């Protein structure tokens, strides 16, 4: 718990200095008068919980263990301003982020606002609900009350707390029992950074009922140069027997700040395959928390991050084994160039009752320059005695022998480096279940390596 205030001083009232920005968020909440806009009272109550949690902590500092390596001053020093309406997004600008035919439904949000003209909902099986969260709350909020804000904790999570207080819109998906969606759902959050250094707070609620199956892709990207801050929260609920593929692509521009939290609740026998692909932003922080809340559930978390220039990319994951016979697999790989800095923190918690837990976690980092830096911290906390858990982290450079092998076949050194770097990333990309998405990302990785300074 940290505070920029002197001991004994409450952050309740705006004070000058570094916390001016915090105060601006608090003021924004007071002025939003959301309840008056017809929002259900329970939603407003949860927003209030969020703002109170944020008031208690303000923005984190390096003294906070979860934020030791990630300085959020660039965010905390800027006063809150809700992102303005997008100014000049023209059709072609979204093309790099769209996926073609296999996508069944696409919902696009521009600067936090639903963009119906860009969105299309495909044919959905009976009972499936897919659309804007704010609309779902306005039309029939009752079924959502037991889910929204239940899994994304706000205590000591200042950004999730702010999102809960200030979220504007996002996607809401409900899949009835045993419904299998064949085509993936693509959620696209585009920020027009030229609209000014505003804040976008997307909020997604994805519920897969018993035995249901779906693939959801969340893409965060910015167009036009400029500063912007996205503070996203996704709650994913997998009821018993449900199975989800959840793919988060973070492709923001160079001056974007991204803080995103994905909170997953898994019931008995459910399965999750998660991908976190993080390429963009001046500062990108992903929190992925998976709670295995039923026995025999499984999760596989794959991650790939590429940072260059002066980028900071921070992935914090936590997997909580709370019941017997659950399995978790986690592989995160990072490629860090230039003066970039990557952070990985992976926590695996095994509760006393979670016997026969099978957990495996790996974090591997490839440094492409002398100034590139990585801080990696895998953490195991085991309170059960009959478990099989391993973890490991590596930080290395390109294999000299591999380089020589490729060069001895006629490949010039830069091409050989590129191939080996690509090969490092390929292990993750190969896991992607959707061929078209996989090809897109392979191309994206390749094109980033073309300009990658050594």
């Amino acid at each position, binding site marked *: 718990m940290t505070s920029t205030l002197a001991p004994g001083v409450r952050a309740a009232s705006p004070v000058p200095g570094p916390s001016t920005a915090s105060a601006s968020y608090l003021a924004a909440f007071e002025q939003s008068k959301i309840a008056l806009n017809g929002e259900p009272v329970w939603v407003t109550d949860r927003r209030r919980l969020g703002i109170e949690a944020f008031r208690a902590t303000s923005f984190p500092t390096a003294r906070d263990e979860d934020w030791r390596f990630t300085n959020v001053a660039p965010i905390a020093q800027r006063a809150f301003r809700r992102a303005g309406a997008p100014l000049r997004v023209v059709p072609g600008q979204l093309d790099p982020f769209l996926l073609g035919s296999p996508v069944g439904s696409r919902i696009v949000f521009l600067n936090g606002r639903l963009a119906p003209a860009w969105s299309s909902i495909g044919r959905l099986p009976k009972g499936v609900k897919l659309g804007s969260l704010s609309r779902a709350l306005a039309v029939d909020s009752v079924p959502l009350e037991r889910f929204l804000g239940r899994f994304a904790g706000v205590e000591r999570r200042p950004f999730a707390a702010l999102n809960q207080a200030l979220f504007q819109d996002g996607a809401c998906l409900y899949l009835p029992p045993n419904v299998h969606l064949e085509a993936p759902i693509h959620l696209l959050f585009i920020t027009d950074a030229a609209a000014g250094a505003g804040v976008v707070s997307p909020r997604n609620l994805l519920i897969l009922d018993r035995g249901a199956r779906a693939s959801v892709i969340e893409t965060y990207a910015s167009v036009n140069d400029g500063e912007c801050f996205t503070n996203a929260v996704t709650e994913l609920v997998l009821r018993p027997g449900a199975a989800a593929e959840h793919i988060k692509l973070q492709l923001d521009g160079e001056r974007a700040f991204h803080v995103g939290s994905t909170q997953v609740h898994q019931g008995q026998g459910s399965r999750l395959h998660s991908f976190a692909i993080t390429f963009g932003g001046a500062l990108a922080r992903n929190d992925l928390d998976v709670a295995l809340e039923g026995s025999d559930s499984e999760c596989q978390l794959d991650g790939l991050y590429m940072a260059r220039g002066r980028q900071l990319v921070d992935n914090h994951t936590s997997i909580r084994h709370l019941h017997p016979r659950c399995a978790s697999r986690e592989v995160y790989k990072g490629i860090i160039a230039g003066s970039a800095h990557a952070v990985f923190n992976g926590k695996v918690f095994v509760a006393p009752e979670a016997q026969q837990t099978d957990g495996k976690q790996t974090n591997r980092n490839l440094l492409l320059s002398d100034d590139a830096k990585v801080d990696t911290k895998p953490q195991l906390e085991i309170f059960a005695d009959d478990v099989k858990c391993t973890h490991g982290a590596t930080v290395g450079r390109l*294999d*000299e*022998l*591999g380089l*020589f*092998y*490729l*060069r*001895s*076949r*006629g*490949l*010039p*050194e830069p*091409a*050989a480096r590129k*191939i*080996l770097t*690509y*090969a*490092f*990333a*390929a*292990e993750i990309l*190969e896991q992607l279940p959707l061929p078209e998405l996989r090809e897109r990302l392979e191309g994206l990785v390749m094109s980033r390596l073309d300009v990658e300074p050594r």
Partner: protein
Amino acid sequence: MLEIRNLHARAGETEILKGIDLTVRAGEVHAVMGPNGSGKSTLAQVLAGHPAFEVTEGSVLYDGRDLLDMDPEVRAQAGLFLAFQYPVEIPGVTNAYFLRAALNEIRKARGQEEVDPIEFLELVDQKLKLVDWGPEVMSRQVNAGFSGGEKKRNEILQMAILEPRLAILDETDSGLDIDALRIVAEGVNRLRRPDNATILVTHYQRLLNYIVPDFVHVLYDGQIVKSGGKELALELEAKGYEWLTGEAAPA
């Protein structure tokens, strides 16, 4: 084609090659034999430009060019090929991608058109037969999960596709069962042409039953201590290396 004069090389502080002289002409097959630690593999790797070794003295001319002044990729583009004793695994890259990229670099250097993926697969089709493989090996990742014998076959496949002028085979026979050895040897024999040359680095005479050399050289303690025709290999087989090195046979 290749003229090695008084070649000295070291790894770190250890001098391994202590004055090698060797001339290889087009159309010839040379076998370099010797006990473990004699410097055979170092010679092969130095010729290919391995960064772990430093040449401290001597010269190597390849087609009249200063080979030691060329980067490894330039040597390969000029037609030199080393079949590795321990081929490197490159998970995440397919044989097809790797070999097409390599072939195109070599073709570029020769002033030839690059081949597209379809032309490449047609070309590879004939080469695969040389090593008795089907096309599925092209979509496997380079050497990853290959058995020892498969790795050696993959080296010969690469050689067949890249069509070197000077091929250096570093212990390509080691760790091969008799069938694999036959396949590898057959591949090498069918790639022999009057305008290319081969250096076989080997510990055992066995390989030379299948690939008949024009010359045999015995390397010991970083120097060539004896050279002769193919009959020298048989003599080594019968007598071991000790009569040349003056050391007692190992127990």
